């Protein structure tokens, strides 16, 4: 069988579902919603182009070349194209399966492999976290688009004992180690609403989203199994990272087992759960105008972005960005593996921020995913998790004893 000389790959690489590929009629309505096409104007970096290339290998007409691989490697996997597609092509599945096929025949870049290993090994993560914390305190570490500033040296301890029906806050890997204050804010907010919540605990660890996005399917499935085994509850699982939430919600589809399906059904983005189950306070007098930046995995993958607005709306006036939820370029490991593209995409977000900031006021921005927050923070924006802002306001309410507003 013929193979491509440079890649050593042949057209047996992909085994995608032909019907899924056929769902694309090449209309091109996805193009403007693809961040990599937006910045390059090159259809090799567009959903329609990528599908055409997948199809060409799937139908055995083409052997993957370096150019072909690059087209797949440069996908952020934001799934903005899925929201835009009138024929509902499941592009996320297609690219995920393609990345899996690629990962089976070649090694990922060293930096990515090291990063993914650290996420998967809690002890290693604790050590690395300590090191990062020290380097940051000594001023030896520059602002980075994937490591937040102010990483604490030691892990914060959250309450982990819970009864089997209570909601559990999934704390994850880096979020627990690097930005524990977001979890604190979530717990504070939930306590304010009178919800008794415990955290998932140290044995649960990473959800495997970044491993899945890199094509390491067998690793991500193992991690998914670990997460489910270590959370033997029957109550709701609340997630305050959009990327992890999307992954946990997809365990069922990924693994196909009854157990995984049932688990996924219990997963909620924390805003979604609050909006559906808690009585939000009456609107307070709004002083702050706040820009909401939707993480792609909340808006396009989970379609749950509206709940962030519901939870915020009693406290602040929400300013919408004019870019229809275009990706910010963070994309998990994307900001490491495709630094140049990631930076170009972030510039579009900067333009969108500038467009809503016509009066030159100083806005705060919120985004419900740690990756987006860090990626945008490194560009100098003041950006927080929505629940950090909500926690501030509920704190004020509690202090000024405005609880009566709830009755």
């Amino acid at each position, binding site marked *: 069988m013929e193979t491509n000389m*440079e890649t050593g790959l042949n057209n047996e690489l992909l085994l995608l579902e032909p019907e899924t590929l*056929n*769902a*694309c*009629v*090449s*209309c*091109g*309505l*996805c*193009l*403007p919603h693809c961040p990599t096409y937006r910045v*390059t*104007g*090159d*259809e*090799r*970096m567009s959903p329609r*182009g990528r599908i*055409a*290339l997948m199809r*060409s290998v799937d139908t055995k007409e*083409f052997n993957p*070349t*370096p*150019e*072909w691989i*690059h*087209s797949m490697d440069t996908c952020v996997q934001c799934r903005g194209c899925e929201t*835009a*597609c*009138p*024929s*509902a*092509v499941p592009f996320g599945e297609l690219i995920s399966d393609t990345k899996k096929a690629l990962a089976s025949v070649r090694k990922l870049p060293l930096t990515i492999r090291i990063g993914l290993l650290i996420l998967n090994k809690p002890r290693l993560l604790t050590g690395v976290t300590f090191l990062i914390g020290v380097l940051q305190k000594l001023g030896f570490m520059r602002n980075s688009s994937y490591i937040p500033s102010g990483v604490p040296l030691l892990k914060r301890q959250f309450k982990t004992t819970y009864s089997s029906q209570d909601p559990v806050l999934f704390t994850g890997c880096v979020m627990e180690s690097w930005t524990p204050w977001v979890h604190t804010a979530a717990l504070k907010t939930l306590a304010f609403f009178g919800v008794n919540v415990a955290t998932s605990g140290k044995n649960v660890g990473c959800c495997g989203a970044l491993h899945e996005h890199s094509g390491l399917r067998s690793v991500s499935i193992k991690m998914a199994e670990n997460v489910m085994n270590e959370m033997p509850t029957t109550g709701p699982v609340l997630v305050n990272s959009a990327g992890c939430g999307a992954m946990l919600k997809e365990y069922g589809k990924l693994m196909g087992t009854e157990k995984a399906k049932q688990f996924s059904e219990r997963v909620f983005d924390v805003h979604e759960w609050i909006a559906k189950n808690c009585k939000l306070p009456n609107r307070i007098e709004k002083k702050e105008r706040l820009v909401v930046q939707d993480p792609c995995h909340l808006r396009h993958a989970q379609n749950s972005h509206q709940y962030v607005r519901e939870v915020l709306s009693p406290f602040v006036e929400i300013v919408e960005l*004019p870019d229809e939820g275009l990706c910010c370029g963070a994309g998990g490991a994307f900001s490491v593996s495709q630094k140049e593209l990631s930076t170009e995409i972030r510039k579009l977000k900067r333009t969108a921020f500038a467009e809503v900031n016509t009066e030159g006021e100083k806005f705060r921005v919120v985004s419900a995913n740690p990756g987006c927050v860090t990626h945008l923070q490194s560009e100098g924006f003041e950006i927080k998790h929505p629940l950090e802002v909500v926690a501030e306001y509920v704190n004020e309410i509690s202090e000024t004893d405005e609880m009566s507003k709830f009755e």
Partner: protein
Amino acid sequence: MRKSQRKVKDPLLISLIKALSEDRVTDGAAARRIYSKDASVIEGGRAGVICFPEDTAEVVKCVSLANEYDREFVTRGAGTGLAGGSVPCNDPIVIVTTRMKKIIDVDIEKKIAWVQPGVVNLDLSNFLKGTGLHFAPDPSSQQACTIGGNVANNSGGPHCLAYGVTNSHIAALEVVLPDSSIVQLGSIEGEARGYDLRGVFVGGEGTLGVATRIAVRLTEDPPEIATLLLDFSKITDAAETVSQIIANGVLPAALELMDRNVVAAVEPFAKAGYPLDAEAVLIAEVDGLPDGVSHEVGIITDIAINNGAREVRIAADEEERERIWKGRKSAFGAIAKIKPDYYLHDTVIPRGRLAEVIEKVYKIAETHDLVVMNVFHAGDGNLHPLLVFDARIPGTLEKVKKAGEEIVRISLEAGGVLSGEHGIGLEKQRFMSQQFSERDLEAQDALRRSFDPENRSNPHKVLPTGSSCGELNSLNEIPEGVWI
């Protein structure tokens, strides 16, 4: 963009890289594959070197290199065309305009904007939000298609019923002619002197040169808009309503018809609340001063009810209005929900004969045992019958081709024309001699040759050439590697 990894050998490629930059010129096999197709079902295109110029000077370089190396060139925007107009034949240089996306200048007072051809249609109107102005042509693909492509195809769109197609909204053009010289056609200060060559260029489908800067006329936002959704149990009743609305002196901003199959395909995506049990849904939009709008809404409602409309719904707010339009504008893209392939015609027929021709279209599909979906600009009689099919089923393509030919024939017989807005491209070339006499076609060819004597700019398109490089879907009869 990735730098080409292999040793560069082709002298044309080397020259183009020198003229632009290495990351904006490619002859990679993957790129050539992608750029050999547009949004139509035409296969068999062959792209040569693909370039991404960023300004007029770079386009000039691409075109002069085409001359120097005696190669053809094809200009392409977002590739949303439905007639194969930007499908390359014969390994031409493909000039992609998507990186020419600057809005150069907006003159609010003169209501003119100068833009580069790669500016996306909707991006311009979004950019103008708050100025009280917008760019009126709104093809269904407006969120993706480029203004350069609109110029090439003289594109229409739902709102062109009242506002006119692209040609009415182009004041002037800077064009790189096929010999690489730069000219300005038209003028932003009233009428141009001499013949209206601007008008010739608009709709030229890229055969007359490359537009590199476009002065578009901007339209004032209407003070009041009402969008009506009319629900019919017979499509002929809806067609009759359309004729009567206009016969009664009302010219709505838009008048769009969708049949039951189209509604079923788009509703799950658009969530516009279209009635799924209606045989036809008519979207009517009227705009203008508030009194006029409510008067016209009254007339349209009366006519619709007299013609058996089951319900007349008026969009309550901007959000509902947007959803109604989102559904209409996603129709082609949603086809895969029904079948994986579609073949679309674009004929225009006299409005008075809508009901009769539509019935015939359904008959034709029925005779060939095919599914047809109708979604079209009813107000100006511009049909878009979509024959949907699965090309993998043997014999289907032949049936589709046949049915397509019959649809064209009955449209022409009813006094209609071949294409309303999608252009002729490769796909409708073979029908040109049904509409035009030999002498007509010769005159058109002479006009084309006066712009492009060497037949270099998007050749093999529009006028019948005897051989066609692309074929409908997998009816790809040209063996790999054969030059045409």
